[in-house]
């Protein structure tokens, strides 16, 4: 019977996969930029190369993964699809991809047109995602911290994007240069609000589910999400009203939240019911160790001033982006992609291959070690610019390996599906 089961509610396979297969290309591009211009990337976080690299990773790679995952997580977490997933993905995916390229090109000196194109394309993509995700998220009967966390994260994405557009217009000369001061808020809303709240909301669901840990305490999940949301709104209002210490207060608040989240997650993982240390767990542990390490550095940076002449914020950025968010995303991709391929195979054949055959544990562990070496090289490159070349090579290899591993899973899926098809034909 299983092969005849109907699974209409899951989004079509091509919807999330197109985002997941595009993301590694941006990692490759970011790696290439590091190899070619690594000295400029690490000179300061404000160099055009540093901004281009940051946005290749955040808007190029991570936003692709996060939007792709939203299509998949929403039905699981909330029992609600994004509205018209096929149409939405057909609009959002090219706009997000071309917008990410245009934005990086804009930073690297391609001129005002590139920034205008980035604003138009990313604006289209994000307005569509915001509208459709909101429709699904506000109409779901599902309760619990994941749904509320997703709602808050989507609102934070809209604020982060609006601030980003203002910054792009200021770099373009359309707005006064004074608007560039908004970059502190843009970083806060993008990393703390959108990425941080999304990471937490997904963690409440997937850490117990995939890593077989006890659940996060309900009060903790609620307090952390509400605390970050209140912090972002109140901190921004105080910043806009001109309070001198608002930026420091926001940063310290986010550092505390990151540390609390990392500590709680590591504590849960120590109490997991199945004592297997698979690649997914290692990716999560690296991410949580990075978040725990960046918290005191961020607090130190804003409270005491940066004694390292610009290195500290770069270090915090490396820990947050490469060590934290990227690690979690890689770990989760290796769970999500085989799972949805398995789910779709289950529609067509009654005995699909085991999920572990789609991307083997050995290949995932290889990627973990490569990624770990890449993060280490990035950390060294903060002080030793020559290491940026090694970091770039490792980042590009990481993108390549991700594409190869996901491609391998798709190949197993196609082979299993093709092999089973004739058996189901009548006659």
């Amino acid at each position, binding site marked *: *019977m299983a092969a*005849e*089961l109907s*699974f209409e509610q899951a989004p079509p396979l091509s919807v999330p996969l197109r985002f997941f297969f595009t993301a590694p290309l941006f990692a490759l591009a970011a790696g290439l930029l590091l190899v070619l211009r690594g000295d400029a990337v690490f000179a300061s976080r404000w160099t055009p190369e540093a901004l281009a690299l940051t946005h290749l990773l955040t808007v190029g790679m991570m936003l692709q993964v996060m939007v792709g995952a939203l299509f998949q997580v929403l039905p699981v977490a909330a029992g609600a699809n994004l509205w018209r997933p096929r149409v939405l993905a057909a609009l959002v995916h090219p706009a997000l991809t071309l917008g990410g390229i245009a934005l990086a090109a804009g930073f690297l000196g391609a001129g005002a047109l590139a920034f205008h194109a980035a604003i138009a394309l990313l604006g289209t993509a994000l307005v569509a995602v915001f509208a459709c995700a909101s429709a699904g998220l506000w109409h779901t009967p599902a309760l619990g911290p994941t749904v509320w966390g997703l709602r808050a994260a989507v609102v934070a994405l809209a604020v982060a994007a609006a601030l980003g557009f203002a910054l792009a217009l200021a770099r373009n000369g359309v707005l006064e240069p004074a608007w560039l001061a908004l970059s502190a808020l843009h970083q806060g809303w993008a990393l703390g609000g959108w990425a941080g709240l999304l990471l937490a909301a997904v963690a409440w669901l997937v850490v117990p589910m995939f890593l077989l840990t006890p659940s996060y305490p309900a009060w903790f999940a609620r307090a952390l999400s509400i605390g970050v949301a209140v912090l972002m709104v109140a901190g921004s209002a105080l910043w806009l009203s001109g309070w001198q210490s608002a930026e420091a207060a926001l940063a310290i608040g986010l550092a505390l939240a990151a540390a609390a989240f990392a500590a709680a997650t590591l504590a849960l993982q120590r109490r997991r019911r*199945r004592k297997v240390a698979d690649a997914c767990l290692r990716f999560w542990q690296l991410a949580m160790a990075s978040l725990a390490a960046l918290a005191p550095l961020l607090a130190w940076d804003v409270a005491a001033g940066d004694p390292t002449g610009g290195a500290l914020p770069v270090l915090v950025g490396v820990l947050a982006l490469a060590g934290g968010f990227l690690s979690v995303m890689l770990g989760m991709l290796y769970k999500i992609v085989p799972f949805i391929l398995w*789910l779709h195979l*289950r529609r067509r054949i009654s005995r699909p291959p085991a*999920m572990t055959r789609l991307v083997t544990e050995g290949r995932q562990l290889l990627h973990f070690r490569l990624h770990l070496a890449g993060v280490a090289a990035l950390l060294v490159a903060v002080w030793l610019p020559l290491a940026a070349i090694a970091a770039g090579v490792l980042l590009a290899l990481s993108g390549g390996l991700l594409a190869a591993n996901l491609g391998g899973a798709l190949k197993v899926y196609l082979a299993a599906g093709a092999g089973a098809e004739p058996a189901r034909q009548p006659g």
Partner: protein
Amino acid sequence: MADTPVSRIIDARELAPPEPMELTLEALDTLPRGEELQLWLLREPFPLYNILKNNGFAHRVEYCDDGRFIVHIRHAGA
């Protein structure tokens, strides 16, 4: 539904996806009409609900104080 005999219980609390769904779908293959399958989980299996609804099964979810979600599944109209 309260009086429906329980033909099988799947305790999937210690299993990682997709094992709970795999076991449930296999068990539904042989679920006799008028009998109930119970799935024990530590979360609500939203994707499963749609599959059940689309394939002629009725379900009811019970939340227990120990954190368990018990999904009671039977053939619709049985």
